[in-house]
C-alpha cells in the first residue's frame, strides 16, 4: 500500500506554479501567455506525481516487493502530458513569432467585428440599411399621406390641381367637418 499523504513541498510548489501561471495567462503578450501555459502545464504534471502517492521502489516485477513499488501509471501519463505540452509550446511560439513578423508585436488582439457591432448598437444605428424599402416621409402621417390607392387617384384627378401632399388630408378634413352637419 502506497503512502498517500501528499508531500507539502510539492503542494506549495504546485500552488506557486498555478498562481504565477494564471497571472501570466491574463497578460496581453503572447510570449508571457506562453510562459504561463508552460508553468500551468508543469504544475499539472507535479499534481500527477502527488496523485501517484509517495515515491517507492522501481515498479519492475521481481526487483522489489509489490507493496514497496511506486505507482507507474501516473508517470506514464505525465510523460504523455509533457510531450503534448512540448508540442503545444512549440506551436504557440511559432504563432507568437508569426504575429511579430506581421504586426511587430505579439499581443492578443480584440475581436474587431464584435467591436464594430457594439459601436453600432451604442449609437443606436441599424446594422442594415434597407435599400428596397420605400421610406416616404419622416412621420407615420407623412407616410400615410403618401400612400394612396385608386380611389385617391380618382379623387385627385377630379379635384383641381391642388398641392401634392395636401390633397387627401384636405379631403379628410372636409368629410370630417361635413358629417356632423348631416347627422341630425
Amino acid at each position, binding site marked *: 500500500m502506497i503512502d498517500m499523504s501528499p508531500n507539502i513541498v510539492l503542494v506549495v510548489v504546485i500552488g506557486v506554479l498555478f498562481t504565477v501561471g494564471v497571472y501570466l495567462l491574463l497578460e496581453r503578450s503572447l510570449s508571457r501567455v506562453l510562459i504561463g*501555459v508552460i508553468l500551468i502545464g508543469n504544475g499539472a504534471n507535479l499534481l500527477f506525481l502527488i496523485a501517484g502517492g509517495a515515491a517507492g521502489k522501481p515498479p519492475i516485477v521481481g526487483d522489489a516487493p509489490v507493496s514497496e513499488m511506486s505507482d507507474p501509471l501516473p508517470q506514464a501519463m505525465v510523460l504523455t502530458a509533457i510531450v503534448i505540452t512540448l508540442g503545444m509550446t512549440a506551436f504557440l511560439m511559432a504563432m507568437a513569432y508569426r504575429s511579430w513578423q506581421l504586426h511587430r508585436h505579439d499581443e492578443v488582439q480584440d475581436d474587431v467585428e464584435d467591436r464594430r457591432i457594439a459601436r453600432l448598437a451604442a449609437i443606436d444605428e441599424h446594422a442594415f440599411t434597407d435599400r428596397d424599402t420605400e421610406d416616404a416621409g419622416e412621420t407615420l402621417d407623412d407616410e400615410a399621406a403618401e400612400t394612396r390607392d385608386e380611389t385617391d387617384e380618382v379623387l385627385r384627378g377630379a379635384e383641381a390641381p391642388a398641392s401634392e401632399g395636401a390633397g387627401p388630408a384636405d379631403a379628410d378634413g372636409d368629410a370630417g367637418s361635413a358629417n356632423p352637419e348631416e347627422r341630425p
Partner: protein
Amino acid sequence: MNDPTWLVPLPVVVPLFGAGLALALYRKPRAQRLISVIALSLVLAASATLLVLADGGPLVIDVGGWAAPVGIDLVADRLSALMLTISSAVTLAVLLYSLAEGDADGDEAAPVSIYHPTYLVLTAGVANAFLSGDLFNIYVGFEILLAASYVLLTLGGTGERIRAGSIYVVVALLSSALFLISIAMIYAATGTVNLAQLAVRLPEIDPGVRLVLQIMLLVAFGIKAAIFPLSAWLPDSYPTAPAPVTAVFAGLLTKVGVYAIIRTQTLLFPEGRLDDVLMWAALATMIIGILGAVAQDDIKRLLSFTLVSHIGYMIFGIALSTTMGWTASIYYVAHHITVQTALFLVVGLIERRGGTTSLDRLGGLAKLAPVLAILFFIPAMNLSGIPPLSGFLGKVGLLQAGVQLGTPLAYTLVVGGVVTSLLTLYALVKAWNKAFWQTPPAELPDTRLPGGMIGPTAALVGLGLALTFAGGPLYAYTERAADALKDRSPYIDAVLPDGERGAGESANVVSDESTTDLETPAPEVTP
C-alpha cells in the same frame, strides 16, 4: 474475423496511418487526395458497421491486449457509434468539398500538402475522443484534434487568422490544462482513469470531492462545447478560417465537448447534482447566443452565434437527466452536426458566388443561383425547427421531455427553447431575405460555382433530410442509447466482464487489494 471487435480501432488507426502516408507523399497532391478519400471512406464504412453492431451491445477492445483498467480500452456503444457515423459522413463530405474547391482555385491558393495530413489527424482525434473508454485517452484524443485544429485554423498564417487563432489556441490550452488537472485529481481520489472503473469507484468517495471533480470536468468540457459564460471565443475564431475548415469545426469540435459531457454526466455522475446549474447555463447559452446572432450582419458570424445558441438545447436535454431528455439530446446532436456543417458549406458557396459574406453587400442571389437558394433554405428552416424537418423533431422531443419533468425551471427552459427557436427563424430569414432577395447594392461578380462543391453540399443537405425521414428508427435508436446510458451496467459489464479486469494480457494477474482501494499494480510473480 468472427469477432467484430477488430473494427473498433479502425476509425482512429486508418486516418492516422493515412495522415502519415499523405505527409510522406507531400510532393504528389494527386496521391494525397486519393489517400484522404480512401481513408475517410473506410472510416465511414467501419463506423456504419459499428453503428449496426453496437445495437447488440457495446463492443470493447483492450488495446495491445492489456486488460482494461491497466491498459487502454476502446468502447463502441450506441452513443459512440452514432456520433462516429454522423461525424465520419460529415468529414467525408467536407473533404470532397475542399477537394473541389482546390481544383477550382488551383492548388497554389492553399498549402494543400499540409492540409490533407492535418485533416486526417483531426478526424482521428475526433474518433479517438468518441471511442475511448479511458479518461486520459479522451484527453489525448482532444489534444490530437485540437493540435490539428490549431494548424487548420491558422492555415496560411495571414494576419487575421493569426489574430483569431491566438485567442482560440490560448482558450483551448487553458481548457486542456483544466482537463489535465481534473484527471490528476480524479486519479488521486480513485486510483483509476478507466471510465467503467470510475463509474464503480466514484460513488464510494467523499461526496464533496466528487462534486469538485464533477465541476472541474464540466468547466473543462464546457469551454470546448462553448456553453455560455465560456463561449465568447467561438464566434470570433471560427469565421476567419477557410469555409470547409469552419464547416467541420462547427459540426464536430463543439459536439466532441457535448459528447464528453454526456458521457461523464451519465456514466460517472449519474446523481445529477449540477443539473440545475446546467439548466441555467443552457438557458443563458440559448438566449444570449441567439441574441448575438440577431445583431450580426455577417452571415458567417451569424451562423457561429446560432451554433453557440443551439448547444444550449443539447445541454438542456442532458440536464433533464431523464431517458427522454437524453434521447432527444442525442438526436439533436446528430441533427445539429449535419445541419450546421451543411449551412457553413452553403455559406462558403455564397461567399464564392457573391464575393462577400456581409449581408449588406449581398443580394439577389435567388435569381442568380437558384440551386444555392434551395441549398440554403432547407437547412436554414431545418435549423430553426420548421416541421416536419429533423430540427423540429429534436426540439419537440426536448420540449416534451422538459414538460414531462415538470419543474418550474424545466418549464422556463421550455419557454426559452421556443423563444430561441423563433429568434433563430428570425435571424435566418433575415439572412435569407438579405442575401437572396434584396436588390444587390452593387453588381455581384459573375462566377460559376463548381459542381464538385455543390455535390457534397447537396449530399449533406440530403443527409439532414434523411434524418427527418429516418426519424422514427433513428429516434428509437437514440432512445435505446439513452436507456443504456441510464442503466450504466451494459457499459460497465462490457468493459469489466468480471467486475475487476477486462479481457486481456493482465487478466491472470491477481490483485491483492480490494477494488475499492487505491490502484496498485500488484502482480504476483508467475514465472
